[in-house]
């Protein structure tokens, strides 16, 4: 209890005075006109610069708390090991004061030149918590002034942190800058997008990796400090803005501004979560669900960390996985072993999943390869190839999906070719072996039973 109090007094002392942030702005802030209901409603000030006016809303939040980026996790998130990453980018990335969380609310999802970002939310670490600043245009005429301000913020903090911003928010803003023909597109030092890492790790368990889902199931919603109970549906946001533009109610926009704040705080919290998850060498098993560990393993593998991927995978299997994922995890593990050159370990794993309805085909095919190349045993190889073929034929989808059946027929030809080659090989080997083995190969091989 005292610890909490301590923290709060510490934070209170550090809480920024508004004047400080205003001083660094190029725009001058003034309280809104009494006649300006939207500014009153969303608690905004009027920002003025040489392009005109727009509204600006500033808030400081104690949660999520600032976390120091762990170098290993940062490297994983930013592809830092990629040689192409510039010095400027590396330097900026490792300095969290250069980071800018960004999330926009737009007039549509279509993209292209006719979609506007009418609310641009920014956030950065400050005084142990999160400073959030939101720019709102009361009409399209205020876009230039808003973008000018945004460019100024980005030049101070040129590392963008977003959730799906790489393919949506940032290209949209680039369009908007280009459309002004007056304000250059700001140069980013680096761009961290958390959507893909989040999807890799949590998609398996959650199905959907929308920020709301992540908050609820990954970030421990009750402790975050905000509640989504009365949050608006994001699909309605463009219409709320259009209604407001046409003189309709501006009240729903209060919800939009709040929604944007929560998204920004969620984004920062998500970063904190990923930072710790990716930062530990081996996450403690009792904290992380096994499915997440498996997802993490796949993410690590993709980002070129085979050793950590392997241990996360083993950990996830040991914790126990649902049966449909269980075989898949083993398949991945086998693949990793094979790549390491540990063919015996791989073969054991394949034997373990041979009866799996989905992965069994793959396992048999791999075992055929293994017996042919590693064990130089064409007889066993042919058995497994035939088994794979039989399984494949049994699994033939009944759906009229030409893509699925094209895939099936592709693997079928591949297997047939392999079998034909193996049989040629066998035919040229000793006479004594040939006859019984070929007939055996046509039926279920006897040794599969014991592996079941």
């Amino acid at each position, binding site marked *: 209890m005292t610890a909490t109090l301590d923290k709060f007094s510490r934070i209170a002392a550090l809480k920024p005075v508004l004047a400080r942030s205003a001083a660094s702005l190029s725009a001058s802030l003034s309280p809104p006109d009494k006649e300006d209901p939207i500014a009153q409603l969303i608690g905004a000030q009027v920002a003025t610069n040489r392009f005109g006016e727009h509204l600006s809303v500033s808030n400081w939040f104690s949660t999520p708390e600032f976390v120091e980026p762990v170098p290993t996790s940062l490297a994983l998130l930013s592809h830092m090991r990629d040689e192409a990453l510039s010095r400027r980018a590396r330097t900026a990335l490792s300095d969290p004061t250069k980071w800018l969380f960004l999330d926009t609310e737009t*007039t549509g999802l*279509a993209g*292209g*030149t*006719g979609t506007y970002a009418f609310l641009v939310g920014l956030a950065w670490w400050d005084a142990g918590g999160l400073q959030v600043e939101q720019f709102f245009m009361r009409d399209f005429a205020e876009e230039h002034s808003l973008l000018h301000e945004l460019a100024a913020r980005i030049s101070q903090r040129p590392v963008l942190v977003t959730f799906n911003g790489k393919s949506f928010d940032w290209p949209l803003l680039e369009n908007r800058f280009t459309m002004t023909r007056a304000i250059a597109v700001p140069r980013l030092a680096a761009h961290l997008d958390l959507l893909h890492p989040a999807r890799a790790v949590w998609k398996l368990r959650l199905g959907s990796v929308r920020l709301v889902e992540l908050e609820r199931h990954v970030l421990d919603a009750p402790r975050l400090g905000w509640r989504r109970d009365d949050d608006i549906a994001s699909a309605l946001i463009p219409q709320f803005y259009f209604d407001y533009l046409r003189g309709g109610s501006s009240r729903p926009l209060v919800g939009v501004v709040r929604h944007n704040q929560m998204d920004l705080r969620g984004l920062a919290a998500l970063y904190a979560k990923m930072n710790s998850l990716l930062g530990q060498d081996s996450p403690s098993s009792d904290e992380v669900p096994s499915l997440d560990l498996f997802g993490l393993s796949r993410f690590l593998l993709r980002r070129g960390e085979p050793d950590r991927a392997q241990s996360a995978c083993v950990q996830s299997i040991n914790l126990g996985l649902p049966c449909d994922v269980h075989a898949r995890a083993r398949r991945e593990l086998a693949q990793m072993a094979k790549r390491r050159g540990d063919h015996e370990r791989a073969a054991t794993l394949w034997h373990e999943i041979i009866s799996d309805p989905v992965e069994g085909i793959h396992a048999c095919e791999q075992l055929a390869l293994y017996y042919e190349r590693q064990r130089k045993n064409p007889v066993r190889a042919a058995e497994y190839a035939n088994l794979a073929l039989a399984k494949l034929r049994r699994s033939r989808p009944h759906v009229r999906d030409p893509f699925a*059946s094209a895939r099936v027929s592709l693997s079928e030809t591949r297997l047939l070719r392999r079998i034909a080659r193996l049989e040629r090989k066998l035919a040229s080997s000793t006479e004594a072996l040939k006859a019984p083995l070929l007939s055996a190969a046509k039926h279920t091989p006897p040794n599969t039973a014991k592996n079941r």
Partner: protein
Amino acid sequence: MSESLAVRPATSPVGAASSPLDRASRAASLTLVHEVLESFASRDIHGEVLTAIRHYPARAAEWAEFPAWINPNLVAAYAAKGISRPYTHQAAAAESVHAGKNVVIVTPTASGKTLCYNLPVLNAVLETSDTRALYLFPTKALAQDQLAELYDLNQRLDNSFGVFTYDGDTPADARKAIREKGHIVLTNPDMLHTGILPHHTRWTHLFENLRYIVIDELHTYRGVFGSHLCNVLRRLRRIARFYGRDPQFICCSATIANPGELASRLLESEVEVLSSNGAPAAEKTFVFYNPPVVNRALGIRRSYINEASRVTQEFLKHDLQTILFANSRLHTELLLTYLQQANPQPPGKPDTIRGYRGGYLPGERREIERGLRDGRIRGVVSTSALELGIDVGSLDASVMAGYPGTIAATWQRAGRAGRRSGSSCAVLVASSAPLDQFIVRHPDYFFGNTPEHAFIQPDNLEILINHLKCAAFELPISSDERFGDVDLPDLCARLAEAGFLHRAADHYHWTHEAYPADTISLRSVTSDNFVIIDITGEPNVIGEVDFPSALVFVHEKAIYIHGGQQYHVEHLDFKERKAYVKRVDVDYYTDAIRYTQVRILDPAATATACKTVILPAPSAPCEGSEAKDLNAKEGNDRSAHSHSHGDVLVRSQVVGFKKIKFFTHENVGAGQLELPENEMHTTSYWITLERPLLESLPYSVSERQSGMFGLLHALASIASLLLMCDPRDLGTAIGERPPSPDTGTAEPVILSEAKDLNSAMPNSKAAATQEFFEPNLYLYDAYPGGIGFSEPLFRAHHLLLLRTRELISACPCDSGCPSCVGPAGDLAPRAKQAALTILDRLLRGGNDTSEQEMNGEMIGLRKDSK
């Protein structure tokens, strides 16, 4: 006509200097072509089959020098390709472009028009490497063809420029590089409309340096497609202006009557017309072939499909490479089947006769084009798809199964044979459709007339508003901007009211979540395509059809023919836009039956025999002479009819199909279908026959009904001739007149069959037996929003009736034939007489037609406005 039957030309061909080998092969093809022609002539005992034979002597090349300002590297590159100097028209075109003018180059097929634009554009790129150019082709295939040519030049120029195609097939990861590095981007209007303009911020580099826009095959942009393109170009120029550029246009067109007018309407600026041609041409013979009459009384001729296949076979037998054009996909496949059967290949060897049409996959098409160029493929059956400038090399003969609909298209197709040297032959095999018969019986009309005018209606509100939405999406619309010849502030205000735009500080901004270009197709009503999947063995995609065609060709139980192979349509998945077919071998094909209903929404003007009533009509000019004449008529001889034009709603639906036997074309069965309706808001011209008129006719009810259908059949043929439009641009229907004339929006819906004007297939009789009390005979624009035919038809009402009467009364058949009122078998016995009597009654209303109207064969389309 017998004097024109001298088969051998009087003058020996003169050509450009050529090698002995060339001369030898030319002489050979000359002999062969003449052998074929003689074999036709020998069969034509009564002199009725070959109605015209025209010889066109060879023409020598006229050379010029490369202009001095052309970069020497470029001259060297062309020299390395074997082009040491340009033709006169090529040099002239380059000079005009160099002088900064917008130009339109008018030359026939295969006259080297590509060089006309590549020369100045490449020169500019080589001089200033920032120069950017955009090439627009009507099809992806044409763009691919040009890409190959430009690649070749680029290699000879050490890859000093970037050239790419950008269309629906361009992989996403290649797109960024194209935007940055493409000096020349080859695309099509559709991609410009949906992919480039709405994302112009991604193309900053191109737009900031955009200097040339090349529009090839300009003549294809007529009617609706042209009206769309004009608006797309308005948007393009708007975006270019935003980036500070005013690009120059280079257009190429096939021979049409008004290339300069079309170009200046499309570009909305001044355009210089270059119509001289310095390219050489081979000797050519043009033959009109009218299939022999089998039954004179019924006016039945031998099937033109079979005859076209026979003519083609004759050329193939002489080892002459031949292209056979059909007017529909169905006929393409039918003819391909016949020809492949006549030229069987040993198993395993690829067919030497191939089909070519939209719906074949791109790879297959490229392979056929190559096969034609290197001579492996001896014959090709094509739709209009090969009419445009795709390079398939020079063929020896071109056969047309049916009149292509326009003079310009006929010359284009004829031009596919004999590109530079040798001798070649073009044969038009007439169908029994009225238009075809008119053309082959009056050869001077065809050979003496200029090709059609191409018209566009860019300010058609339906089209313009759609593009205005796209324009607002691309860039806010400023209140002092101009976009076409319309009241822009008013339109914007209306769009704002409808929730699409919002005004902020003198600009209208797009305020809608949708991406407007996605829902607007430049070519057809819907942009959805159906994929055709063969499920005989492993599922395999064999082709695709567009939405309107899908209802007609791949409805359930249809026989779909692809590459000469028949498929039975097992299942049409409407939601997923997929058709599942299985290979079959049957001796029939299917033809869909369509029903159409028309509902009048808003009549713009009505003229009765006594007076002309111009309903709200702010701008419907009525020819003064006509109005006077009508007014002069005394009111007591009130003939009970009127004609009108205005807005209508057309609903059409495929309700069934017929099974038709191969070769004999007998009807061997039918089936019913339940398919969704297509709805279209368009404009129409119609004639109302009032009850007194009908009741005064001395015919039975069924004869009267039959007479009306026959009359409509003939009216539609003459209308398309007068309008110089494609017959398919006009739809026909008969429906009951609205019960009370003062409420135009009442329910005047009556089913009637819409006859496909081009089809020689017997039509079902069911529709004709319905009794109409006060029918309207509709001729409507077969495109949403209308193309602007209705008002001119309304003005030319009298001329239309006169010419129709001439057509019917001059036809030698007894009681109707496909060439006048339709096939006799479909009609009641005295239908032809009934049609003539109705015409007489109609003409009694205003027969004092002024002379100038009689002389003006062409209807001035331009006078109307919406």
